[in-house]
C-alpha cells in the first residue's frame, strides 16, 4: 500500500449468488491505488466488473474478502456519515439520480445543511460557487432536472457530488449517454476539476479514447480481474497484455481506410464459468499451452509501475495478434 494514496483497494473480491448454488465472482482479488489529485481510469468490456469495484468502494457492495483504505484508514462495512461523504459517485444517467421535484438550489442547500458544511448565510454563495465550478450560470439554481439537457444534468450531478467536498469522486460512464459534441465539454470539466480542486477521480468507461484523454493511470479489467495497469502512456503506447492490445486495435479510427479485421473472436465467458489458467486464453490470439494451465499473476512489465497479467508480458506481440 502506497502512503501517498488517498484510496487503496487491497485484494478485494465481490461475489454474487448464481444459479445452481454457485457463485459469480464479479470482482476477483482486485488491488488499486488512487494517488491524490490524479485520475485513475478503469476500462474493460461490459460485465468485466468495473461498476462492482466502484460499488465496493462506496460501500454499496460488501466485499467477501479484502480491504479498502481511505487515507490509510481501513473502512469497515458500517460506514460513518463522514466516510460516505468522502466518497461520491456520478452515474451514466444523471436524470435517474436527480429528484425531479426539487430545484438545484434546494438539493444543494439540503446537502450543505445535512453535512454542516457552511453557515446559513454562506449557503447561497456556496451554491453559486458550485455552479461556477461546473460551468453553469447561477440562474441554473432555480431550475429542476427536467428543464436541463443531458450535458447540463450531468453538470448538476457533478455539482451535487462536489457540494459535500468529497476526497474521492467516482464517475461511472459519466459521458456514455451524452452526445459526442457534449462529451467534450464534460471531459473538459473533469480536467478543470482535477487542476483547480485537485480532486482525486476514478473514471470508469468502456470508451478508450475518453479514458486516454483524461486519465493519469489506467487499469484494464477482464472477467473481474485487473489484467494490466500502468501510467496512461504505458498502457496506450506500450500495452503488454494481448487483451489491451485487442481493445486498442478495435477502436474505430477516423481515418480508417476500411473495416479493420476483428482482433478477438467470440465473447467474454460468464464469470460463473471462469476458464482455467489465464481466463483470457479461449479468446487470446497468442495463447500457448501453458495459458490453459497456469494463471498469470499481475506482475511488473517493462518500466516501473507497469503491471500485466500475461505469461508473455515481456515479449513483443506476435503476428498471430494481427489476424
Amino acid at each position, binding site marked *: 500500500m502506497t502512503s501517498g494514496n488517498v484510496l487503496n483497494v487491497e485484494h478485494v473480491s465481490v461475489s454474487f449468488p448464481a444459479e445452481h448454488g454457485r457463485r459469480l465472482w464479479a470482482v476477483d482479488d482486485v488491488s488499486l491505488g488512487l494517488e491524490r489529485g490524479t485520475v485513475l481510469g478503469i476500462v474493460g468490456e461490459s460485465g468485466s466488473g468495473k461498476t462492482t469495484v466502484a460499488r465496493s468502494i462506496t460501500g454499496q457492495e460488501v466485499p467477501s474478502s479484502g480491504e479498502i483504505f481511505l487515507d490509510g484508514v481501513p473502512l469497515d462495512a458500517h460506514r460513518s456519515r463522514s466516510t460516505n461523504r468522502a466518497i461520491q459517485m456520478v452515474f451514466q444517467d444523471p436524470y435517474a439520480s436527480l429528484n425531479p421535484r426539487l430545484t438545484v438550489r434546494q438539493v444543494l442547500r439540503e446537502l450543505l445543511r445535512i453535512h454542516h458544511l457552511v453557515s446559513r448565510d454562506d449557503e447561497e454563495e456556496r451554491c453559486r460557487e458550485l455552479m461556477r465550478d461546473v460551468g453553469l450560470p447561477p440562474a441554473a439554481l432555480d431550475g429542476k432536472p427536467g428543464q436541463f439537457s443531458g450535458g447540463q444534468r450531468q453538470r448538476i450531478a457533478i455539482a451535487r457530488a462536489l457540494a459535500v467536498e468529497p476526497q474521492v469522486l467516482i464517475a461511472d460512464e459519466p459521458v456514455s449517454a451524452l452526445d459526442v459534441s457534449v462529451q467534450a465539454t464534460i471531459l473538459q470539466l473533469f480536467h478543470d476539476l482535477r487542476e483547480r480542486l485537485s480532486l482525486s477521480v476514478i473514471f470508469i468507461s468502456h470508451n478508450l479514447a475518453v479514458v486516454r*484523454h483524461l486519465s493519469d493511470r489506467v487499469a484494464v479489467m477482464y472477467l473481474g480481474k485487473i489484467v494490466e495497469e500502468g501510467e496512461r502512456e504505458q498502457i496506450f503506447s506500450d500495452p503488454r497484455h494481448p487483451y489491451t492490445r485487442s481493445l486498442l486495435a478495435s477502436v474505430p479510427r*477516423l481515418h480508417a481506410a476500411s473495416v479493420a479485421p476483428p482482433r478477438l473472436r467470440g465473447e467474454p465467458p460468464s464469470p460463473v464459468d471462469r476458464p482455467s489458467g489465464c481466463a483470457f486464453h479461449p479468446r487470446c490470439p497468442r495463447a500457448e499451452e501453458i495459458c490453459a494451465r497456469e494463471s498469470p499473476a499481475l506482475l511488473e512489465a517493462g518500466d516501473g509501475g507497469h503491471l500485466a497479467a500475461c505469461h508473455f508480458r515481456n515479449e513483443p506481440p506476435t503476428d498471430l495478434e494481427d489476424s
Partner: protein
Amino acid sequence: MSVVSAAVSALAVEDLSVELPRDGTTIRPVNGVSFTVERGRSLAIVGESGSGKSVTLRAILGLLPKGGRVTSGHVAVEGRTLKESRRNLGRGRDAHLSIVFQDPLAALNPVLTVGAQIAEAPRFVLGLTRRAARDRALELLRLVGIPDPVRRYDAYPHELSGGLRQRVMIAVALSSEPKVLLCDEPTTSLDVTIQAQVLALLSDLRRDEGLALVFVTHDLGVAAEVAEDLAVMYAGRLVETGPVSEVLSSPKHPYTFGLLESAIDVDTPDRIPLAIPGSLPDLSQLPKGCAFHPRCFLATPECTTTDVELRSVGEGRASACLHADQLTIGTRRS
C-alpha cells in the same frame, strides 16, 4: 410499382419530408432529404441526437410514429418505387428492405425462440416449407457468426448476450433476403471488440451478397470504417454529403467541422476536443435562413435570411453552406 430510372441504385431516396405532431404543433424532423446507395455500397448518416436520423430510416420503411406523415418524396429500391402503404408491413419485409435497430431486445419478440423469428420470413414471405425455412434460419445464424447455431436456434432473446442478440437481429433482418439493410446505431451498445465483429460481418455481407447499407451512427470513427459515403444531418436536413474520407479530412460545412473538432480521438490524447457551442434548435422554432447560424463560427448576416440548399462543392461533394469555400483544412475556432 413503376420503373423510375434506367441506371438503378439499390436505394434511391428523393426529397423525403416528414411531419410529426408534437405538443399541439407540427414539426418537420425530415426535410427534403435525398440520397442514393449503390449495390454493395454503404452510406453513413451522422448528426447530433435529435437531428432526424431515425425518423428518416423509419420514413423509408413506412414505420413512422403515430400521427406521422410523409409529406413529400419518394423511395425506390432497385428502381421499384415503394408506395408508403406497401412499405408499412412491419419490418419492411415486402420491399427488399430491412432494418436493424440499436436495441435488439426491444425489437425481438421475447416469447418466440430466435430460430422461429428468423424462419418466419423464409416460411411466410418467401414461401419455403417448414423444413427449408428452418435450414435457412440455421444458415443465417451461421452466416452472422453465431457459434453453435443448432443449440442457439431454440434460445430466447433474453438468454443471449448483447452481441449475440445484435447478430440475431441482423439475421432476422436478412431473412427476407433484402437488397438494402438500414441500420440504426446497431453497434452503439456493444463493446468495441464485439462492435468490430459486427462491422466486419456487415462488410462481408456487402462484398458477398451485394447488400447495400444505410448506417446511422453518432460515431465518426464507425462511419469512417463502415461506409464509403457520408451524409451529415442537422435539424432534419442533409447539410453535407460526399465520400467519407474526403468529408472527414476536409469538411465543407461548419457543422461537420464542429463534429470533427468535438470528436475524442484515441490516437491524439493531448488534442483538446472542442464542443460545438449551443445546442440543436427546437424543431418547432427553427432559426430563419440557415438553421445552423446561431451556432456557426462563420455565420454572416446573409446566413440569417437566405435559405440554403445542398449544392455541389466539387466532384461527388455537396454542402448546404453559403461560405463553404472559406473552410480550409486546419481552420480552428478560437
